[in-house]
């Protein structure tokens, strides 16, 4: 046997499949134990510097997108493909010898399962390469462009349904999406957790929520600007772009806990407070908590936070291969049912004799 033939035989063998599966399982285990997608500083803080360097060198910080993970998956696909192609003539021969549909079908179980796994891996991989994802957030009344999609989304309403015990039952956003390329009226949809909406080829998900507030700035007692800013976002002073007010966090029921810092006693707006930072040319000037109606004075500017409200974050996604992967999953199920429960007569006899 030539080396080439030997190699071909090996990569199409079940032995190679078992080795690949074992390695894949081991890599997945590592990926589950090492927190993924963190920075070098994060790993250094958690482990030692040497371990952090090793994690980054071995791509353990993003195992599931590492070159070796893709290589293993690629070899697994190749192995499955070769296995299915090489076994096909024998299966067809056996099927022709079958007397009933059930008997004929019985030979196809593993073959169908392998096709399903192939479809699933291909669907997932293609989805990973081609998917598009955007996030849009704001309060009711705001409109925003959605990345490079050519779509604009208006948030018509956002509701947080609470139960009697103040736990959240559902988050619901009512949105209207406009396609800038067409002059037609926008399409309205209601989006809640577990109930995404499909509009213009994109799927809109209710992702999360947070606090927003109106931030107004006066200069020498005259109104300069007013905007709704979400916590985690910032406002650039209109006539002094070097000066930035950053809205760090909102505490609806503010209390200062010694040793812990600012906190909130409840989710109800009983004692609203705003944690802010001020930056000038990228350098932090200060950080503090501002109570409702309190005024922050920076030179000739007066900053005021008011009207705290919940904002909604909508995730927008397009993954044309999700259905492909789903079909792969369903084919696996069919293949397993055929493998385990539609047996050809020979295997039935073996089972009976054992």
């Amino acid at each position, binding site marked *: 046997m030539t080396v080439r033939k030997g190699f071909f035989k090996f990569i199409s063998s*079940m*032995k190679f*499949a*078992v080795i690949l*599966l*074992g390695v*894949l*399982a081991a890599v*997945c*285990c590592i*990926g*589950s*134990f090492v927190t*993924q997608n963190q920075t070098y500083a994060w790993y250094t803080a958690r482990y030692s510097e040497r371990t952090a360097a090793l994690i980054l060198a071995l791509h353990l910080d993003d195992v*599931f997108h590492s070159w070796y993970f893709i290589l293993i998956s690629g070899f697994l696909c190749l192995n499955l493909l070769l296995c299915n192609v090489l076994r096909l003539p024998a299966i067809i021969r056996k099927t022709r010898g079958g007397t009933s549909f059930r008997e004929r079908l019985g030979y196809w179980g593993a073959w169908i399962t392998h096709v399903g796994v192939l479809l699933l891996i291909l669907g*997932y991989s293609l989805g990973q390469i081609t998917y598009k*994802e955007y996030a849009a957030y704001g309060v009711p009344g705001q409109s925003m462009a959605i990345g490079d999609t050519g779509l604009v989304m208006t948030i018509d309403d956002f509701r947080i349904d609470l*139960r009697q*015990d103040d*736990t*959240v*039952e*559902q*988050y619901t956003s009512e949105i209207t999406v406009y396609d800038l390329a067409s002059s037609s009226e926008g399409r309205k949809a209601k989006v*809640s*957790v*577990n*109930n*995404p909406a499909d509009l213009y080829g994109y*799927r809109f*998900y209710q*992702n999360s929520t947070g606090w927003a507030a109106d931030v107004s700035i006066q200069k020498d007692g005259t109104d300069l600007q007013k905007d709704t800013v979400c916590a985690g976002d910032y406002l650039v002073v209109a006539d002094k772009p070097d000066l930035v007010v950053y809205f760090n966090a909102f505490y609806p029921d503010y209390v200062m806990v010694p040793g812990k810092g600012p906190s909130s006693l409840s989710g109800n707006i009983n004692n609203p407070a705003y944690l802010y930072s001020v930056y000038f040319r990228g350098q932090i000037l200060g950080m503090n908590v501002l109570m409702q109606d309190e005024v922050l004075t920076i030179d000739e500017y007066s900053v005021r936070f008011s009207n705290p409200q919940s904002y909604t974050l909508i*995730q927008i*996604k397009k993954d044309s291969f*999700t259905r492909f*992967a*789903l079909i792969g*999953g*369903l084919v*696996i*199920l069919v293949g*397993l*049912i055929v*493998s*385990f429960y539609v047996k050809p007569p020979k295997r039935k006899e073996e*089972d009976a004799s*054992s």
Partner: protein
Amino acid sequence: MLQVENTLFTIVMISYFASMVLYFIYIAAKKEIFSKIAFALQAFGFVLHTVAIVCRGIGAGRLPLTNQYEFATSFAWGLCLLGMIFILRFKFYVMGAFISPVVFLMIGYAAMQSKEVRELMPALRSGWLGFHVSTAIIAYGAFGVSFVLGIIFLLRDKLREHGFLDQHIPDKQKLDLIEYRSVALGMLFLSFTIITGAIWAERAWGSYWSWDPKETWSLVTWIIYAIYLHLRIRRGYKGKSAAIFAVIGFICVLFTYIGVNTFIPGIHSYK
């Protein structure tokens, strides 16, 4: 209703414990009658267990499959159900002495969890919850049975010295076959679990696969059993190697359920 469930749960624990002791007595005393009583007690406990879970569901006003306690008690229920089915199907009462401690340990674990009924977070309020978790219960139950059968297989030669056990435990070939049947059932249902979970995750989190530790470990478990199925059809690997993988597979199942929730936080950590 929740008080009724609490009382029933205690009776169920006692029934399972008594059933386990009777299975041990059956082997020690070598009298068939004890196996029948042990099985009857196990069945009695199972019926009450079913009623307890239904009471919990009525009391909570939702499917009782959402927190660590509810899944642990359902896991024990699934183990008991699958154990009884395999005992009856293959007239293999000695297996009761091996499966009943696993059932008892699992319900003991459930007893240590908080029984507080909490309202569901929005992501869990989905019709997919029932499909996803109930298929996991059947899968885990079937894998529990295969674990027990793997242990029996590995101990089979040592048990040969015990004349009674030698007579009442099937030969290795049949043990291997029964183990295969339970793995096959578990594999099918685990695949259902993963696929229904992926469909649900896509609707709730916008991504059908996020490499969350729970997802990753369910995939690892699936791979381990896939290796088992491949090894079993390879000459020379049937039997012992397959039995070892059946044991490793269930350890992965336990880690997926308990270990991941305890040690690795992720989006599945509903404690």
